[in-house]
């Protein structure tokens, strides 16, 4: 399969420090002073022209946060974070603009090409702007086409969504334009008091996405390509709220397979999903934040709270995640199965290499009758990394007929990494049926030699075996992204053998 070979070629050429390319910014435009106080919270709210209720909401969260302490139960180690040494507000920083694709480092272009990201998106991601009085007509054409294309694509999307009645906008805009929806649902899944990082996010969140799908509407497109174009500069405290009204369906894709570097080391996002009667939300994530260099220095701390509420009868929420980046990942996309007959799914591929630490999993909380959930987790540990699956499956006293199936598989590459599985299972009524399967395996020398004898290099062989291992989960991703994710997986395992 060509994907594997391409990947390996790329891997050979580019090392971890490739991240330095292309993601530089010019000077900051506007920054609030370091540290967090009521003044800073007010400043953020004011900068965003928020209504008074929003400011109150933030302030309540801030006051609550002051009383909380950082959680330490996860299997991750890092130096203590000084929360007064962080900038909590910076106006979106313009990227260093370039006039055409020709000015971009060819290595970066190759990266995009290998990942299969269309040129017009590359132009957007790299912040290409047409210049006035451009000399080279050929260059100018590329630039203008690229930008024009992406703008027109975005516009077409917008028109189509509007026709369907789907609201899709930055949450900062939604706060002003659809306050009734935001007020009703914001914090209704992840309350401001939920946990240290979610509470911090509630106080200082910068921006994020808001989606509302009206009753009986099937969202006409994956909210992906569009999202990818517009996702830049949402910052370190992202807040996303998605509401699928009765009988509606939406598939949402977050993230990008292209490497993303950010100077902000701490990321604490909150994602809330609400599915009403007969509604379905499919949420897919591909996370490829900077994992730190080959000595384990730097890298993003990713402390995320993601939760979906199957609030209505027969509703369904499905999480699919491919986690390859970040120095530390602390993330448990969960489902509250409140509505009768509702169902939740969690499909996960978590890859750690180098010095990465992953503590990720899910919570399936069965509250309604005849609810079902399914967990398929594939953890891959390489290098000197630690990879933990932590999951909770619980059935309430009244949640009769609850069913869960869990399969946790871990794959070890090399002998300096660790894989851990920490499942919590609680059934508070006797009619629940919970199944749990777990395996841990190592890529055997015999399998690698077999592949190599047939002409594959060591890295190609590992890529192939790993892609086979994660196939069940990859299949859950939207088509176009599955292909990119497959390549990304092999890239992430760079240097894990030999």
């Amino acid at each position, binding site marked *: *399969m*060509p994907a*594997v*070979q391409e990947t390996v070629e790329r891997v050979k050429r580019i090392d971890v420090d490739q991240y330095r390319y292309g993601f530089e910014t010019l000077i900051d435009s506007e920054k609030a002073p370091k540290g967090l106080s009521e003044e800073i919270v007010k400043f953020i709210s004011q900068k965003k022209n928020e209504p008074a209720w929003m400011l109150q909401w933030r302030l309540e969260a801030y006051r609550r946060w002051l009383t909380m302490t950082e959680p330490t139960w996860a299997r991750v180690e890092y130096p203590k974070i000084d929360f007064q040494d962080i900038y909590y507000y910076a106006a979106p920083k313009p990227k260093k603009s370039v006039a055409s694709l020709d000015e971009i480092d060819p290595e970066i272009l190759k990266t995009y090409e290998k990942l299969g990201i269309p040129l017009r998106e590359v132009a957007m991601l790299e912040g290409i702007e047409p210049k006035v009085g451009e000399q080279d007509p050929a260059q100018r054409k590329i630039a203008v086409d690229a930008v024009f294309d992406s703008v027109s694509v975005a516009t077409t999307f917008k028109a189509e969504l509007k026709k369907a009645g789907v609201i899709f906008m930055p949450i900062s805009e939604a706060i002003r334009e659809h306050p009734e929806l935001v007020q009703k649902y914001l914090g209704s899944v992840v309350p401001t008091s939920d946990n240290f990082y979610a509470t911090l996010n509630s106080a200082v969140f910068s921006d994020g996405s808001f989606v509302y799908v009206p009753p009986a509407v099937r969202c006409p497109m994956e909210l992906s390509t569009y999202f990818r174009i517009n996702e830049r500069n949402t910052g370190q405290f992202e807040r996303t709220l998605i509401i699928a009204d009765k009988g509606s369906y939406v598939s949402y894709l977050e993230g990008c397979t292209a490497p993303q570097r950010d100077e902000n080391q701490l990321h604490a996002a909150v994602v809330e999903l609400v599915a009403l009667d007969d509604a379905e939300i499919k949420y897919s994530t591909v996370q490829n934040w900077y994992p730190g260099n080959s000595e384990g220095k730097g890298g993003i701390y990713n402390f995320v709270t993601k939760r979906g509420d199957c609030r209505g009868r027969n509703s369904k929420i499905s999480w699919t995640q491919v986690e390859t980046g970040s120095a530390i990942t602390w993330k448990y996309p969960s489902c509250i199965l409140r509505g009768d007959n509702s169902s939740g799914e969690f499909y996960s591929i978590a890859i750690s290499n180098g010095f990465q630490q992953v503590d990720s999993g899910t919570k399936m909380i069965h509250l309604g009758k005849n609810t079902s959930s399914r967990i398929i987790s594939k953890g891959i540990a390489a290098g000197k990394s630690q990879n933990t699956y932590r999951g909770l499956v619980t059935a309430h006293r009244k949640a009769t007929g609850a069913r869960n199936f869990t399969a946790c598989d871990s794959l070890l590459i090399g002998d300096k990494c660790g894989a851990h599985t920490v499942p919590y299972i609680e059934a508070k009524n006797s009619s629940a049926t919970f199944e749990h399967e777990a395996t841990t395996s190592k890529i*055997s*020398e*015999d*399998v690698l*030699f*077999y*592949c*190599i*004898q*047939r*002409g*594959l*290099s*060591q890295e*190609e062989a590992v890529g*192939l*075996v790993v*892609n*086979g*291992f*994660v*196939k*069940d989960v990859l299949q859950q991703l939207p088509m176009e992204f599955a292909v990119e994710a497959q390549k990304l997986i092999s890239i992430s395992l760079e240097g894990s053998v030999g």
Partner: protein
Amino acid sequence: MALLEVKDLKVRVEEREILHGLTLTVNEGEIHAIMGPNGSGKSTLSHVIAGKPGYEVTDGQILFRGEDLLEMDPEERAAKGVFLAFQYPVEIPGVATMTFLRTALNAQRKARGEDEYSTPDFLRKVREVSKSLNIPQDMLKRGVNVGFSGGEKKRNEVLQMALFEPALCILDEMDSGLDIDALRIAADGVNALRTPKRAIVVITHYQRLLNYIIPDFVHVMSRGRVVKSGDKQLALELEESGYAQFEDAA
């Protein structure tokens, strides 16, 4: 020039010498059988030729078309045309056989500086070959060797041999675990691959396989050396008298 020349090869595994100066020459178009009791070093020889890690060559040479094979990575040897059919082919869950075949074939072609096969060309070729080996298309969609019977696994090895068109095929105990019908199908597949350019080395305990794949030369190995060479008649004699006589000779 000989296709394969093994000269006075000495090999150790974890400080223990397994091959004590083995010499073997294989020319294009020839079929050689290497016979010998368990532990005589037959499989070690095949692994060292293919480049499996864990073996230390302390002396001697292996030349492939005059080039030093021991200097090459195992994948490089594969691309040059060295193929080892495994005694126990491994299972690779989640990787469709078809995907595996294509990845491997294109990796080899690329290493040789040839164009990769296009999808239609590749599919045509696989269909053609698998049909002649009586391999159902549905088997190609399953994970590599996952849930395959012993016979299916060996046929899958022959299928790869046919696809990759190697210059040298080493069949390591191809008859192990096969019933007589499965053995015949696999052997027919191998015979169909005989060409004046291709050499085949058959490693086996038993004479039985050599009724189907008729060798030009038979070598008897004992305690890490070739102790006797002859034609196919030698295999029949062995069947009669057993290996014990050579144990003493070695």
